[in-house]
């Protein structure tokens, strides 16, 4: 046989919940009513936090902020599938995943106001600090997963990143290493179609991001990222597979960045007309609400309660951050090394003495 086929691959896309709120029951993930309500609540809370952060930024009370609007299903439903003991490696646009995983919201406010203390993850959680250099946290996720496997801990690692991150060498090295060592990692791409002003078609010539997993010998799947059930189901399966020793999975959540890249950006400069409107119609929260309404587990009262809870929590979080106030200046010298070097110690004294 002169030209023989030595590999055949298929890339699948998972969709469960459509824009009208109809779910395909035959493949619906097992979620109790309580869990459904919880999921909805988290998605709402994430959006409410996002809105508050945007308005606080406009008032000058937070620094540059990266909105997650439109990505609530992709972020919340994936993190919802994890256990509290699992490890989470977020990028810089992961408010929804962080909140769902239990990260204290006042610390998120601290972070976005330029205070490192917001990144000191509470001891009982395994959530890494936000990663700003795009994609460079993925090797950490691979290494963490290797360590969990070596140590025999039944935990998975969830790593979040954007479509832009898939072009970085770090993405490649991390995926390759995770594949070679069959590490319990779940790579969750928020394919929101844009990396600042660069559209997906300029980011890669590949038809899907999911197929990039083929390069590393593990499974890749695309899910409708605005469909909380598809995201949840794929994430849950991948996390369980990881814990069972089945190695890594790559999940491409196909979604959209409704907001500007950050509050420092103006996306009307570069986005084609109409695209935004089209995607607004695919709102992930509305979709879940329609489903719940159809199932008779959604009421105006529930919505009111969810809104009130969210408002209250967010207010509390913001006040807590304000109460705590700015960090002590001496913190600047406290964490570069475990013990400050002699030069650092001297600089600290100089600084305290008025600075020279």
């Amino acid at each position, binding site marked *: 046989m002169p030209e023989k086929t030595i590999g055949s691959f298929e890339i699948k896309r998972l969709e469960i919940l459509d824009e009208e709120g109809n779910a395909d029951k035959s493949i619906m993930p097992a979620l109790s009513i309580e869990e459904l309500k919880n999921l909805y609540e988290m998605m709402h809370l994430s959006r409410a936090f996002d809105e508050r952060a945007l308005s606080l930024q406009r008032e000058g009370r937070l620094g540059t902020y990266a909105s997650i609007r439109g990505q609530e299903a992709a972020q919340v439903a994936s993190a919802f599938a994890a256990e509290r003991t699992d490890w989470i490696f977020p990028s810089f646009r992961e408010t929804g995943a962080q909140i769902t995983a239990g990260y204290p919201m006042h610390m998120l406010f601290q972070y976005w106001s*330029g205070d490192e203390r917001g990144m000191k993850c509470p001891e009982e959680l395994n959530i890494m600090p936000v990663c700003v250099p795009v994609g460079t946290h993925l090797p950490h996720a691979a290494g963490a997963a290797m360590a969990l496997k070596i140590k025999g801990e039944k935990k998975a690692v969830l790593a979040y990143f954007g479509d832009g991150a898939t072009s970085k*060498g770090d993405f490649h090295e991390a995926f390759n290493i995770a594949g070679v060592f069959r590490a319990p990692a779940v790579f969750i791409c928020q394919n929101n179609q844009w990396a600042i*002003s660069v559209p997906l078609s300029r980011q890669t010539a590949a038809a899907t991001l999911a197929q990039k997993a083929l390069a590393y010998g593990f499974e890749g799947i695309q899910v409708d990222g605005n469909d909380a059930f598809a995201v949840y189901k794929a994430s849950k399966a991948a996390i369980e597979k990881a814990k069972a020793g089945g190695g890594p999975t790559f999940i491409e959540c196909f979604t959209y960045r409704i907001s500007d890249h950050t509050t420092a950006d103006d996306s009307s400069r570069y986005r084609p007309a109409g695209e935004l409107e089209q995607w607004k119609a695919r709102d992930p929260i509305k979709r879940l609400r329609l489903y719940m309404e159809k199932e008779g587990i959604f009421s105006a009262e529930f919505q009111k309660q969810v809104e009130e809870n969210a408002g209250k929590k967010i207010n509390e979080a913001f006040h807590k951050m304000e109460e705590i106030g700015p960090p002590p200046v001496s913190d600047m010298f406290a964490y570069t090394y475990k013990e400050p070097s002699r030069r650092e110690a001297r600089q600290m004294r100089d600084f305290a003495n008025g600075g*020279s």
Partner: protein
Amino acid sequence: MAAVNMVQALNMALRQEMEKNTSVTVMGEDVGRAGGVFRVTEGLFERFGGERVIDTPLSEAGIAGAAIGMAVCGLLPVAEIQFMGFIYGAFDQIINHAARLRNRSRGRFSCPIVIRTPYGAGIKALEIHSESTEALFAHIPGIKVVVPSGPYNAKGLLVSAIRDPDPVIFLEPTRLYRMIKEEVPEEPYSIPLGRGRKVKEGKALTLISWGSMLQRALKAAEGFSFDTDVIDLMSLSPWDEEMVLSSVKKTGRAVIVQEAPKTCGFASEVAATIAEEAIAYLRGPVLRVTAYDVVLPFSKLEEYYMPSIERIKNKIEEAMRY
């Protein structure tokens, strides 16, 4: 002649060099339709099209590496790295390739690229958006390092960098991008690389700085009655040792101001050179005003990290005590 800020001056330099030489090619993340996150490349895409103003994937090694390959095939790439904190992905390409191509091919190939990148603290940006690691580049033979300090020299230096036959790292102080306006001639002009600029003439002390710290150094110097020689290095590699040494030989006192942490910063090289070449002329120690040797803090504390006018004044006073 209009008063423009540094962003506009840089934009003018790019536009004019692109008009003059069709090989000049701008590339990087968001440099096209968006015009760059600081708008330095604004309007170039519309004017020169997508083959000369290239939006790249998110790929720092790829940007620097592709620029090298483009240069080998006859283009003159001016690549943008969105912030200096992200240049390390391209570090291997810069150090192991751009810096060495002429030498390792004994001149058959060369690498006339420019890598522009915004740097420095003071704009309350997110993490990894404010570092100042010019010394890492100044240590590497084969590349040049240039740091403008205002609109006028920004334009002239960028023109020289683009025309230079060797790779140039061009560091743009974000804090100054829109802070100062200066009269900048519409006509193209160039400022030679490797030469400093005497900003102020004086006899009592030599104050040396560059880029983002120059303004603060100047302000600090203005607070005294005695005359200070203020030098803006503008180029760090090669750098104008002659200007520094002749000034120090005149004044006998030197204070160097840098935004980066102290240890192994560029100020160390300046001080070491003075200690090696002009020690007999010194009245007292060669003093450095620098950031502290700590990880650069988030925005809430960054102002405490950067050398303040106050700290520079203190050091000047200390130097004058000898």
